[in-house]
């Protein structure tokens, strides 16, 4: 009898021994889900409806961090404005900075736009470079590999499963990228302006020139003087596409569009930002909206 009871207890704990993975943003979470499969429970902390720099540090996030076995952050300073106090107050030793359960994805991604000098006089510049790398579909492979390695380290019992998931996903994603890259060859859009430098990784990957930004400096609201200069630059360069994200005001983009005859394309910066449910849907939306 005792044996059976013990066995049941053991089995139940085994059945529920899923790795709790917290991801700061939804694209990271989706990749973690792909690699972790049924062995992980993924929780996304920051809603993709909102500006990733200004996620509201709701106390409910503390209870999520409290039970995490692994925390995956975007890094590059993107979480600086909201995550550190939450992490300190969640009292979870497993996921503190430097612990085994803390994964900073920016350490794996080759960062671009790394400033040679940093001052807040230039606005909200990230010293480590542009942190918005998730818009490049090729980065997904880097994320998948890093997450696969980390999961195997945290949960060695299921290492084989993670390796298998990683191999399958890599194959699937490479096939997707081949088609994606071929489609992007046909993209007619060659020059754009964007609100904030959210899409630089994507634009660089597909040789689309970013001519300017609607915000005068990172994190500074548009000014009329800057907007007028931008309209002039757009006319000179024949820019016909404005990349608008889902969370900034759209008035300025619409005004610029009306003066230049450009089109405003609302581009998701993260999975789910405007309804996408899967990674492929998310990246398809970016390509379709930019190229149209």
């Amino acid at each position, binding site marked *: 009898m005792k044996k059976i009871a013990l066995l049941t207890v053991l089995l139940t704990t085994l059945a529920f021994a899923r790795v709790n993975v917290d991801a700061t943003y939804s694209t990271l979470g989706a990749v973690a889900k792909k690699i972790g499969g049924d062995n992980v429970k993924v929780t996304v902390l920051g809603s993709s409806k909102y500006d990733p720099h200004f996620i509201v540090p709701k106390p*409910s996030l503390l209870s999520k961090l409290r039970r995490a076995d692994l925390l995956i952050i975007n890094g590059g300073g993107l979480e600086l404005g909201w995550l550190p106090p939450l992490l300190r107050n969640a009292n979870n030793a497993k996921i503190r900075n430097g612990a085994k359960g803390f994964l900073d994805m920016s350490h794996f991604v080759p960062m671009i736009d790394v400033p040679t000098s940093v001052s807040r006089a230039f606005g909200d510049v990230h010293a480590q470079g542009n942190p918005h790398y998730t818009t490049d579909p090729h980065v997904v492979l880097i994320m998948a590999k890093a997450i696969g390695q980390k999961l195997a380290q945290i949960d060695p019992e299921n290492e084989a499963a993670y390796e298998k998931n990683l191999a399958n996903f890599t194959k699937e994603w490479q096939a997707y990228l081949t088609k994606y890259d071929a489609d992007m060859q046909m993209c007619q859009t060659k020059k754009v302006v964007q609100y904030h430098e959210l899409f630089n990784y994507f634009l660089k990957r597909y040789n689309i020139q970013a001519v300017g930004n609607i915000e005068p400096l990172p994190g500074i609201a548009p000014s009329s003087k800057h907007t007028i200069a931008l309209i002039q630059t757009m006319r000179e360069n024949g820019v016909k596409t404005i990349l608008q994200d889902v*969370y900034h005001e759209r008035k300025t983009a619409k005004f610029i569009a009306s003066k230049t005859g450009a089109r405003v394309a609302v581009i998701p910066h993260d999975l789910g930002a405007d309804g996408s449910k899967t990674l492929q849907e998310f990246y398809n939306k970016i390509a379709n909206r930019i190229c149209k």
Partner: protein
Amino acid sequence: MKKSLCLSLLACASLFANAETNATQVELQKQKAAIEKLQMQLDMLAQESQKSRNTSASFSQNAYLPDIALILNMSAVARDVNNTAYENMAIPGFIDAGDVELPFNKNRGFNLNYAEVAMRSSVDPYFDAFAIFHLHPAAFEIEEAYVQTTSLPYALRVKAGKFKSDFGRINAKHQHAWYFDDQPIIYKALFGPDSISDAGVQLQWVAPTDTYIMAGVEAMQGSNDRSFGNVERNNLYVGYVKSSVDVGDDLSILGGVSLAHGKNTTTNATDVYGVDLTMREQLGAYSSLMWQSEYLQRNMVVDGSIKTQTNKQAGLYSELVYQYNNNYSGGVRYDVITKNDVDLSDYANQGINTDNLDKYTAMLEYKPFPMSRLRLSYSYDRTKVIASERKDINTVMLSLNIAAGAHGAHDY
């Protein structure tokens, strides 16, 4: 490589000898320039490969410097009572005339309230250290300096040093993190400008539940003589439970109950109870509506003429702040003393009415950038007695706060 360069030079030279047209000369110049440029790049590459990295800084420790922030807070104030009168104000039953501490925005005209240096650093894998040095124009104060564990099991965390208690909602927040420049009346009346801030230890625990539940206990020196006292030993114990739920994606609710138990003399106890509730509805990426309220009651045992008696006093504040966008916000606050069961006969004998002690505040805030803030506020304060007369005070204030350096994260 060099050989081919020489060859092409020769070829160019022979070309030059044969034809003397301007076009060829120009072409030659271009090629020469290109060759020189290539040669320079070669030299640079050769140099680069010989260089080892970081030769000079063998013992440099710059990478271990703490995160440092400088916070400056200043204001311009217009008030309808003069400075001396303001310094000698009383809040009936709580603060006697001449007994008030006014570290912020005291003077009509201009005030430099403080420069604050905040530092944070990991000590080792087990401790984080924090220090906040608060510099008034004529005083240096260690506002907070503590260590905090990072690696305890079971979601436990210990803090030790001098720190602001997590009692209630606003107690642990620094002046520049408040939504209004003035401290809520009930906090000012019960604890003074520093609130419950003392040397001590704190233990906090976060429950492993879906709903956020945090419980904490603190043992502190109890040197705040407004409610506690100098009883020749540590005397203050604080405990609290806080919980938060989300309703949908955008509405979050945080509530807490707190108790501070201390001594105001060696035999007489002081108990302060606090209840707080905050609701925040996110209206957009940069827009929100926040409603925050706190109720505090103090039961203070004091010596009466025959036996001890318990003075019961209470008050609340309730504030509503609307964040319009990243740059603009506005808010209103209502402060009121709801219970004042103490001996007020001194006031009664002088014919001073001590009922309806309350205060109304409104503010408008402009933030050009997350690190700087301008705030215009108006307050109508009906809690003060000045020169044996109930005196309502009107204040208009423009305050400026900046935080330079390390980025302090945004508070809930």
